[in-house]
């Protein structure tokens, strides 16, 4: 391997100090692994978005003229599987968690850099299998792989897709283990638990779910593949099995998985809101513990996916009640964020627009969740477009808004270039408008009884569906814009010369260089101040004890 070691005149940073392909594919640097993840999940996001575009175009007419019903089923499965397993689950943890966690806590890397790289390879292997399954005729089970359809009836490479999801799941477990240990053991001196940025708290809660939940869905999906291959009746009632058991095991992970998607976004929102209103996050301890509370209670609510599928009514009552309890920590966050902006100096930059968008959309998504958690209304609303609208408000309006906020907020830190602010604001507006136009009509459609996953619908729902499709094209355009201008900015964007373009607090903004050094810190800093110390802008969060020559080499083997 020819080592192209950095020879330029600029100070080397993690991006340019080695440039060979191997130096990227075999890197142990958490920042480079974050970039690997960023590139791969961006591709999957576009693929999943393309499938969504086909779904919406098909539903523009009541008869669903664009696709046959068979292709339509494959499209929504493609959309679900890719977006959930290959985009949302790894999105913020694997990209921003990887990039920021060590920087935020003052560490040179995550605790297990090799495991970190292995996680990316597991993810890519899983993604490859899923894509092979999709291109070899596709699958039509829905992203939930509900049995007995998936195990006994569905045609296509269901088992292959399942193995793919299994591998991607282990990538997620590895990330979780890595972050748990990193947060426990790698904090710089003085970085106490309650000086941690709230993003780190959110990542801690997320990692708990990843480690405790993912293995259950892994074995469950494996059993589906076993049942498909060997006709063992674990889940198929015709073979003596029990489909409800599948649903219990599946949702034991897949409900907490919703919090894998939303908790990191909540962490991002805490960072962005405080940075753009120049105030410490109000009620720091409450926001921190609400993340843990959501993660813990999140494990006790899976039964609300099964109110109408044959679960005992008494179990339903308990699950319903527990589900409402999740609203409390969620509301704590929202109210504390509002109190954070209150009387702050609000700057209307792109990340802030996304963060504010998050707050509005997440509130709608969360409150409609309460309608679904109430058993009486659930019977009417379940498996309708109301559900579709609800979880898109949480996952797209919540998680993806948070992801985009993070992408713009830390873009100068990650790339050393600024994105074009005007285009950024325009895209944020388009996403917000397009999103609401797409999904708000679906609440009404669902309330009127339009079932989800149907390929055609009666004429009287045409207007709302056309509205939704029109909105989705605006939304799609809103998502394409960042893809274009962010890529453009890599070469032509304004070079960031100051290390802290937002005037934000936190160790990642107090690095010596605008773009981090391969080793993050010359010396491990000593942290002397709490997070979000905007009241004392002249005091750095941490200081570097004593200079030491920069060691170049040895890091990336």
């Amino acid at each position, binding site marked *: 391997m020819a080592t192209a070691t950095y020879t330029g005149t600029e100070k080397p940073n993690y991006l340019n100090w080695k440039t060979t392909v191997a130096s990227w594919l075999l890197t142990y640097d958490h920042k480079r692994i974050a970039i690997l993840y960023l590139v791969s999940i961006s591709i999957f996001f576009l693929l999943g978005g393309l499938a969504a575009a086909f779904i919406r175009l098909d539903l523009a007419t009541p008869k669903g003229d664009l696709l046959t019903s068979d292709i339509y089923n494959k499209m929504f499965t493609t959309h679900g599987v890719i977006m959930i397993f290959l985009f949302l689950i790894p999105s913020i943890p694997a990209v921003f968690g990887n990039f920021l966690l*060590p920087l935020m806590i003052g*560490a*040179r*890397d*995550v*605790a*297990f*850099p090799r*495991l970190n790289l292995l996680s990316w390879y597991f993810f890519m292997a899983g993604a490859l299998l899923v894509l092979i399954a999709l291109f070899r005729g596709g699958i039509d089970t829905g992203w939930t792989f509900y049995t007995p359809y998936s195990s006994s009836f569905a045609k296509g490479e269901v088992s292959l897709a399942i193995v793919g999801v299994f591998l991607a799941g282990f990538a997620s*477990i590895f990330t*979780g*283990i*890595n972050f*748990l*240990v990193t947060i*426990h*053991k*790698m904090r710089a*001196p*003085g970085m106490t638990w309650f000086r941690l940025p709230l993003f780190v708290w959110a990542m801690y809660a997320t990692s708990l779910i990843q*480690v*405790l*939940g*993912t*293995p*259950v869905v*892994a*074995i*469950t999906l*494996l*059993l589906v593949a*076993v049942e498909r291959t*060997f*006709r*063992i*009746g*674990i889940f198929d009632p015709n*073979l*003596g*099995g*029990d489909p409800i*058991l599948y649903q219990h*095991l599946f949702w*034991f992970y897949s409900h907490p998985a919703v919090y894998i998607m939303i908790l990191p976004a909540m962490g991002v929102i805490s960072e962005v809101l405080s940075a753009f209103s120049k105030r410490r996050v109000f009620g720091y301890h409450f926001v921190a513990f609400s993340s843990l509370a959501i993660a813990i209670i999140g494990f006790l609510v899976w039964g609300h996916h099964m109110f109408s599928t044959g679960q005992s009514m008494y179990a339903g009552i308990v699950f319903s009640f527990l589900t409402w309890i999740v609203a409390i920590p969620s509301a704590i966050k929202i109210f504390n964020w509002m109190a954070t902006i209150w009387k702050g100096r609000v700057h209307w930059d792109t990340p802030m627009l996304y963060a504010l968008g998050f707050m509005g959309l997440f509130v709608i998504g969360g409150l409609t969740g309460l309608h679904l958690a109430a058993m009486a209304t659930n019977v009417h609303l379940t498996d309708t477009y109301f559900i579709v609208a609800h979880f898109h408000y949480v996952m797209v309006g919540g998680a993806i808004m948070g992801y985009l906020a993070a992408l713009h907020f830390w873009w100068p830190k990650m790339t050393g270039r600024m994105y074009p602010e005007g285009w950024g604001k325009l895209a944020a507006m388009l996403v917000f408008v397009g999103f609401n136009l797409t999904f708000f009509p679906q609440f009404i459609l669902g309330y009127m009884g339009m079932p989800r996953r149907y390929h055609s619908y009666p004429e009287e729902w045409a207007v709302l569906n056309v509205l939704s499709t029109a909105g989705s094209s605006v939304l799609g355009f809103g998502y394409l814009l960042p893809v274009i201008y962010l890529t453009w900015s890599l070469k032509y964007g304004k070079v960031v010369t100051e290390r802290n373009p937002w005037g934000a607090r936190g160790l990642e903004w107090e690095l010596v260089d605008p773009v981090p050094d391969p*080793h993050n810190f010359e*010396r*491990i800093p*000593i942290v*002397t101040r709490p997070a979000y110390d905007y009241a004392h802008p002249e005091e750095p969060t941490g200081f570097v*004890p*004593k200079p030491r020559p920069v060691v170049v080499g*040895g*890091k990336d083997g």
Partner: protein
Amino acid sequence: MSVKELEKTATLEHAGDGQHHGDGILGEQFETLEQQNTSYLIGMWAFIVQEVLFFGAIFAAYAIYRFKYVTEFTLAHHELSVPFGTLNTFVLLFSSYTMARAVRAAMQNRHKKQAFYLFLTFLFAGVFMVNKYFEYSAKFEHHLFPGGDYDAHKVVKHAKEKGELRVVEENGREFYELGKTRDGQFTAFTKVTPEEFEQRTRLFFGFYFVMTGLHGLHVLIGMIIIGILIGRAWIDHLKNKPIADFMPVEMTGLYWHLVDIVWIFLFPLLYLIGR
């Protein structure tokens, strides 16, 4: 802590770093060996928790069907070989002991001893897998593998001989009555069609193969890791290395005990039910 104190602790922590980072034991991301070792330990325990949930889900599924089809599962489990299972249990228990000795030797930097005990562990794991191989082949031979040629007739035959199954005819259809014979008197617990009986015993063997298969996979992975560690310990011995990193052995030990414990649960749940 005041800034001064913090700076002092930080300087102390940094004092050894050149020394440690140089000798190939302390990873670059860590400041001290203590930090590295506890990180490894917490990480390994988190992994073990993950494994517990991984196996836990399938144990839960097994428990449900064991409860639902209690008689069929009991009849099917008679086909498993208790002597083989018992032998394997002892083999694994001994391997855990030798593993613990290997960890101890590693902590004392006695490389030769460590290699020896790791080798014994490897050997026991091999014996376990060979036994498993014979057990599995017997199941395949008797058409008890839940694949295409699964056939419950052997289970039916043995149950009949034991007086725990009776074939009855009602309206020209054949049924199996499952129960117990005491003092020449047959008491039926449940009545199933031959198809149902076939399905449910097939389910038992399905669980048997998936659970012991996953466990066997863990044993194989353990053997690979132990194999690598033997090589490393032997090289350390030949090079007469004064100090080697014992954490890989320690972590493999934790993993190996987990594999052992999973078996400790599998053995009674699969081999000894209804005894």
